[in-house]
Structure formats: C-alpha cells, structure tokens
C-alpha cells in the first residue's frame, strides 16, 4: 500500500483529501500544515509520495518543494485550484511530479499516483546524470586552471604540465584533481 505524507495548505477543513485517499485505498501516514521542516519530516516518516493540497502554491510552498527535491527526493503530487500556467510551470520546475487542478475524485487518485511515480523515477535518473556531468565539468575546470598555473610557473607546454601533475599525483597515490587543488592553493598563497 502506498504511504502518503499529506500537506494541507488550504483554509478548508483538514480531511477533504484524507477521506478521498482512504476510499481509494491509500495509507495517509502523516498529515500536517506547512509550518514544518519538510525534508526533515520526509526523512522521519519515509513516505512513498508527498501530496500537497494548496489553494495557490505561493513562494513558500515552492521553497519547500525545492528543498525537499534537493535533500529528500520523493514523488510530489500537488492538488490546487490555481489555473495559471506560469504557476504550474514554476511548480514542475521546482520538482513537482504531478500538478492537478481539477477536483479530487477518489477513482482518479490511483492513475495520478502512478503517473507521478513514473515521472519521478525518470527525472531521478536524469538528475543523477546531470549531477555526474556537473561534477565532471567542475573537476575539468579545476584541472585546467591548475595546468595553466603550472605552465606559467614551469614555463612548459600543456602536455608537459599534465605529465608533471599526473606523476606527482601517482607518486603520492592521489587523484589528479587532488594535485590540481594543491597547485591552486599554493598559487593563491604565493600571489
């Protein structure tokens, strides 16, 4: 059974979603307003899906979504009355997997959850790839920077600089990026 963390950001009385969810066969493991640390709560109760019910997702709601996507990624389903396409785009960009503007019907909840979970999984793969690429790119830039410093210091060409850095790294049983960082730090100290 899917375990759901329900966040209620509406003035309506608590429970309009909980009833629909129970009828559809989901387990609501926790329910709260927005005055919580969402990533911490997600870590504590380990839901399969986070469901946010909000009249209109404002800046503070989006902030919660971004933080959670970064720290405790989970599929997020947002139920709202807000029809503005710009708000919807912002919500998707922040990490919402499904944005539902029509009323809540118990019989539609299962396919909505399925779509949200599938969407979340494919985004997670892309996200981790993007992170790996970001890190590769960052490391390359640092190595390039160190290489340039070494070429100046040693008055040598690019290939010689790479070879010097690699030999230094291997003889100290380190990675190239570690030696690059040491060269950059030393260069900052000396200039």
């Amino acid at each position, binding site marked *: 059974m899917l375990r759901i963390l329900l966040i209620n950001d509406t003035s309506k009385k608590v429970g309009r979603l909980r009833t629909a969810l129970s009828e559809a066969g989901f387990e609501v493991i926790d329910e709260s307003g927005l005055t919580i640390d969402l990533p911490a709560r997600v870590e504590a109760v380990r839901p399969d899906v986070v469901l946010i019910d909000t009249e209109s997702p404002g*800046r503070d709601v*989006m*902030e919660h979504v*971004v933080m959670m*996507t*970064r720290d405790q990624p989970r599929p997020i389903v947002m139920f709202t009355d807000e029809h503005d396409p710009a708000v919807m785009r912002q919500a*998707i*960009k*922040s*990490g919402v997997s499904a944005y539902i503007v029509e009323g809540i019907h118990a019989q539609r909840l299962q396919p909505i959850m399925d779509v949200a979970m599938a969407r979340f999984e494919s*985004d997670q793969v*892309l*996200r*981790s*790839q*993007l*992170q*790996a*690429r*970001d*890190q*590769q790119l960052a*490391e*390359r830039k640092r*190595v390039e920077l160190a290489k340039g410093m070494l070429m100046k210091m040693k008055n040598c060409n690019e290939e010689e600089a*790479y*070879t010097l850095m*690699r*030999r230094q*790294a*291997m*003889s*100290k*049983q*380190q*990675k*190239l*990026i570690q030696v690059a960082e040491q060269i950059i730090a030393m260069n900052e100290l000396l200039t």
Partner: protein
Amino acid sequence: MSDNSNDLAALHALAWVAGSDGPEKNELNIGFMPLSDSASVLVAATQGFAQPYGLTLNLRRQTSWAGINDKLLSGELDAAHSLYSMIYAIQLGISGAPATDMAVLMGLNQNGQSINLSQPLKSTGITSASALEHRVRQPGDKLNFAQTFPTGTHAMWLYYWLASQGIHPLWDVNSVVVPPPQMLAHLQAERIDGFCVGEPWCANAVAQGQGFTVATSQSIWPDHPEKVLACTREFVEQYPNTARALVMAVLEASRFIEASQENRRSTAQLLSSRDYLDVPLATIEPRFMGDYDDGLGNQWHDPHPLRFHNHGAANFPYLSDGMWFMTQFRRWGLLREDPDYLAVTRQVQQLDLYRRAASSLEIAVPADPMRRSQLIDGSIWDGSDPAGYARSFTLHARHDQ
C-alpha cells in the same frame, strides 16, 4: 531558489543531448583485481583521462575472478579488468554461469604472469622443469598446482607449460583454484606446491622466501594476450558511445604509462596504495619495470616485460588471440566440440569500436587481425586452422579420442 541541478528544462535538454554522440551513461562502475596488470584501468580512472570524454569511472576492487564474472552479468559492474579466456568461457557457457553474449573492448596488457614452485620443492632440489618432471613420475602423492579460475588465463599457461615439459596437467598433478591475493597464504600452509598467477603475487612469494619462479608466462608465449577490458554485449549495444569513450580513456592511460620510465615508475607507486594493490612498492616495482629475480640467484631484464601499450599492439583485440583460448578449452576437454572459432571471436572482439577509438587517438591499428606466434613447444599459432591446432597436441584431454 532556482538551482541548475533542479532545472527540469536542463534535464530535458540533457535527455536530448544523449541522442548525439556523447556518452549515454556518465558514471561507470569498473571492476579490477589487485594485480599489476590492472594499471591502465587505475590510471585512467584516477588521473583525469575519463573526464574529458564525459565519464566518471568508479573503481571497484574485487576479491575473486568468480566475483567479477557474476557482477559483470548482474550489471553491478559495467565493465572490468578481466581474464581474456574467462570472457570466452562466459560466452560459451562453460564458466559456471549461463552462456551470455560478451564483449572484449580492448587488450589491457601482454606478459607479466609466472609459474612458481614452493620452497619445500626447492629445498629438495627441484629447481627446474626437468627435476619437476622427474618428481611427478615418482610414486606417492600428486603435487597440487593452483591457478586463479578454472577457465582463466593462468590455468591455460599452467597447463600449457606443464604439458610442454611432458607433464599432463589434469592427470599427473592436481589442479586447484585460489584467488591471487590468497596464493601466498596457501603456499605458506603447504596446501599447494606450485602456482600460476599475475604480479605482484609471484614477486611477493619470492621476496618472502616462500617460492621461486620456474617459468615466466612470456617464456611460454612471448607477448601473449592476458587481461582485457570486457563487458556484456548488451552494454555495448545499449551504450555504444559510452563504450567508445571508455576505450579511448583507457587507451590514453596505457599510452601514458609507457611514455617514459618516470611515468612507469610513478604508476607502480600508485598501484601500491592500500586502495588498489596494498602491496609494498619494493615488491611491485622491479618486475613492473621488467627486472626479474627468480629466487634461485638469477637476475635479468626481461625482453618481454609486462606491456600495457606497445604502440597499440598490446591493446588491439586480435582475432587470433581470442581464438587461441578456445583451442585450449577444446584441448583440455572444457569444450566437447569445436565451436565456430572465427564466428564466435568476431562477435566477442569489438574490432570496429576499437579501430574507431584508436584512430581518433592516432594509435596504430594493425592491418591484419591475425598474428603469428611461436610458443615454447615450438608450435606455430596464426589463427588459420584453429580446429586442427586444437587437435595437434600430444598431451590433451579431449573426449573424442
């Protein structure tokens, strides 16, 4: 609040870029065994050879060849430093795992393994092949010889060498499997009388006074094929750009190791790290540089030392190299019938992929995918008649004769 890694527009752009010739998969788990001949993989992963191709290589040290076998098939490892013949055994379904289509991406090295005998044998005067042959003919318990995997290269070198000395490797002695790092412990416990393994485990036994080297693998076949970078065929088909980028990174690292003596020496220093081989530099370095001491008072600089590149000759996946291992499987009864040697090898060796990778790095690619070699018993292997070659040996264990 907008953070690049959270930006779905960027994510979807990335999905689109994956349709070009960038790697389809950016982070790879690469298995290796703690052996000197894993050097090019370790250097590629740690010395910035993969990042320019958009790859991060996560090194995963393994404790046995059986483990590498299983993890390649389960997908836990994307690619691995592997025994050449083990990949063919998986392909043919004789490795203990279900037959699976495999891919040899490139050769990682030639030479650098050896056959060693124990200190107790040495102290009874058995210090040569002929003395060993004489001992084997005596009544009494059979000697125990260890290799690292039943269908591995070390088993094939051990069998070939023993047979070349008139000793039947399956009938005259016992054959047992021991993972490389455990060889010394088994030798000390006198559970084995001899073994064939890669460095630095032979030099280690000699250094500890536990044994001596009776034959190097390069004395059996100068510049023989040994370890390969391998993966499943499914991986190559699913991630062709990743596979090519991986080959390019490891090729560049291979070239770098052999670009100078200083590079080679600092590579030995990297290997001795506790994260990789965890063996003292003094044990790794001499044979890594080609300097041998057999433990019997003989020292020499080997004309066919461990080679990682040799201007590309050590990396080219020769069809005749792949086929040779199948002829030995056939010879020793591991294969009951002749496979279609050439067809199987053409499927396993990723010649086109290698050619594209090597050409873009301006590394020479041999015109002929077959090469001609003379082995220790005088036999010539050139890949032209594998079935005939497999049948040509006096000592064998084929079922059909």
